[in-house]
């Protein structure tokens, strides 16, 4: 048992922290921008891309990749430390869709050619990906998706529609899950993953604005989009196995507790300045301190398992639930502390913390849907983790 970081890890943390103090967007630090809320900032895409390249240049986007593919072969705790510091410094640049979803997919299941071709772009922070999974009417029940890619000569030709495609409006590539066999039973055996250049003719992106008024999501339409066969990951009709292998990466990618903890600190600091914390606020604050702490430990536990090469079972789902719920609870706390002021939109000069209270609160409604709904997470914990039987 050991609950401290190694001296090397601590040194890395200090290096990151010093770097971000200097190189992170100063305005964002002042405005205390939160990771899930960054799309509300002016020019955020440029700032995000710029920061990604700075991180990439230092090798921080490939810390735990094998050395042969440009990584540093470090334990996953380095990635965690990096993201903790990014959260603490209100800093963008960690494009988790590329780094924690597409990269592991290619590393785990891609051919050598794909690795050589696509990993460097991700590691450098220059190429940004989005993931094309959910479709209208096919969210939790992903295996029933309908976008179809039919074989034609040296290509597959994709037709259909994706939805909730985060950051598709500026992504360079899309990691596309499409049906390649309509007859397959069960239906998940007919799915394939494709790497698709977003500039390919036939792709159209429509924005979806969220309830915080920000643009994260998109609809992506595929109209006779031709995808070269070499861009298939892990073979035709193997898509579901890739997706399942990666789901846990996605669930543990974002450090909910770190985002929540930073927001909690910001709320408390400002509320103390204004001297508006009442007894009930203080008690709730203490509960949230405890909640963020156990969410942190749960994340450390998963990271430790990953560092030991242990196979995750239910742990990623639990980690995600605790982390994302802690953001929701802290955001709700912010509303309770600032009340009328918290209801002012981020365009109002009187809004506390430059509008972070209302926008983090509104954004937090999404946290029990993204990367799988909380219902699905609990199903997974019960069925996979505890061995309870399926009803169906």
């Amino acid at each position: 048992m050991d609950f401290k970081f190694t001296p090397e890890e601590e040194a890395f943390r200090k290096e990151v922290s010093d770097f971000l103090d200097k190189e992170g967007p100063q305005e964002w630090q002042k405005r205390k921008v939160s990771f899930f809320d960054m799309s509300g900032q002016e020019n955020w895409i440029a700032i995000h891309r710029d920061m990604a390249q700075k991180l990439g240049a230092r090798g921080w986007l490939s810390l735990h990749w094998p050395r042969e593919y440009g990584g540093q072969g470090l334990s996953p705790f380095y990635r965690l430390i990096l993201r903790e510091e990014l959260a603490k410094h209100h800093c963008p640049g960690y494009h988790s869709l590329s780094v924690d979803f597409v990269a592991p997919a290619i590393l785990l299941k891609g051919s050598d050619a794909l690795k050589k071709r696509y990993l460097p772009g991700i590691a450098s922070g220059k190429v940004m990906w989005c993931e094309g999974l959910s479709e209208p009417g096919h969210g939790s029940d992903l295996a029933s998706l309908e976008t179809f890619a039919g074989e034609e000569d040296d290509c597959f030709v994709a037709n259909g529609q994706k939805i909730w495609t985060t950051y598709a409006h500026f992504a360079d590539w899309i990691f596309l899950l499409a049906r390649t066999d309509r007859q397959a039973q069960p239906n998940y055996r007919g799915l394939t993953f494709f790497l698709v250049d977003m500039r390919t003719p036939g792709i159209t992106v429509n924005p979806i604005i969220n309830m915080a008024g920000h643009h994260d999501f998109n609809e992506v339409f595929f109209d006779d989009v031709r995808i070269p066969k070499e861009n298939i990951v892990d073979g035709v009709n193997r898509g579901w196995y890739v997706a399942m292998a990666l789901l846990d990466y996605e669930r543990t990618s974002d450090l909910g507790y770190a985002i929540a903890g930073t927001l909690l600190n910001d709320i408390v600091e400002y509320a103390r300045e204004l001297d508006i914390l009442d007894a009930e606020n203080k008690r709730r604050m203490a509960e949230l301190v405890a909640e963020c702490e156990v969410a942190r430990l749960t994340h450390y536990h998963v990271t430790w398992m990953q560092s030991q090469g242990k196979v995750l079972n239910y742990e990623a789902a639990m980690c995600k639930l605790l982390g994302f719920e802690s953001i929701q609870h802290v955001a709700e706390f912010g509303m309770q502390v600032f009340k009328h002021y918290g209801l002012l939109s981020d365009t109002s000069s009187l809004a506390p913390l430059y509008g972070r209270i209302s926008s983090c609160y509104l954004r937090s409604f999404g946290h029990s849907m993204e990367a799988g709904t909380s219902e699905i997470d609990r199903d997974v914990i019960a069925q996979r983790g505890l061995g309870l039987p399926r009803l169906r």
Partner: protein
Amino acid sequence: MDFGLNEQQEMMQTMARDFLAGEYTDKVLKAMVKDEKGYTPELWKKLASMNLTGLAIPEAYGGVGDFLDLTVVLEEMGRACFISPFFATVVLGATSIVEAGSEAQKKEYLPRIAEGKIIVTLALTEQSGKYTADSIKMKAARQGSDYIINGAKLFVPDAQSADYLICVARTSESKNSQDGITLFIVDIKTAGITVKPLNTISGDKQAEITFANVKIAASNVLGVVDKGWPHVEKIIQKAAVARCAEMVGLAQKALDISLEYAKERIAFGHPIGAFQSIQHRCADMLIDLDSSRFATYQAAWRINENLPAAREAAIAKAWVGQACRRIMASAHQVHGAIGFTEDHILHYYTKKARANEFSFGDVNYNLEKLVV
């Protein structure tokens, strides 16, 4: 004991419901949220033509119906997520004048409210955003036959469209912060008044109002000088219960559309409403909704009967605030990602419910009243 609506209430309910269903479509709602003033004169005229702007104003001053009629109408307005200066004018403005005004003042203002000719609001909260007497810092100093008012009001509903403000100011200092408070009725065009709109997430129109040496004739005092606080308490109480009525309507709609979605959205070969986690969520929503309605009706009934209602109003506002928060969270969970988009109407309800939760006393404020 009678939980039913009488004929008049049913009629008002149906009328308001039909009117809003016809006139206040989702498209209009979305426009009004973005609109600077949040209403159109045409709509206001129609409201007046149906006598809705006269609700709970005594018949002698051109009004119709009582506080219970107003309650059922507000519930319908909640169901429609109706953004308008109705609450400010009819609940806050008219109530203030009925509560505190002289016969002459009532005759002067109430018929015009009932006829839909003026929009009135209450300028109560200040920098603290609280509903306590000690948070009233705005000063009104006597000068001959006038008062000179200085200070600022914050979160004033619908000041953007108001013709008159009921302004709560301090006319004398005293140990007991409840003493020395006076109500004024103020023409918003009076020199020295500046209205600066605030942007809210809910699309509720609110403003910051600054008073710089604003001169108001002493004849504009509502009620007795220095003795205004008991009136304000009464107004807060009615406004809190009125906010509950709106919240019940908001929550009803959130449940209705959640059920509709749960019955039609398919996952894993079944409507998601067949899954027990969704079913139990919906059951809890209904429990919260029904109990909220009962608590609101009880408080409204006591107010209508002129019975002491402090306890019942506090219970209603505390319970409905928490229950409505749970209902909205569940509605989002049932809707999944679609309910998280700006296009979907759900978030308007969530935001309005949240604004109502804080309006005229939040959960803690009301729970503290129940500690005896």
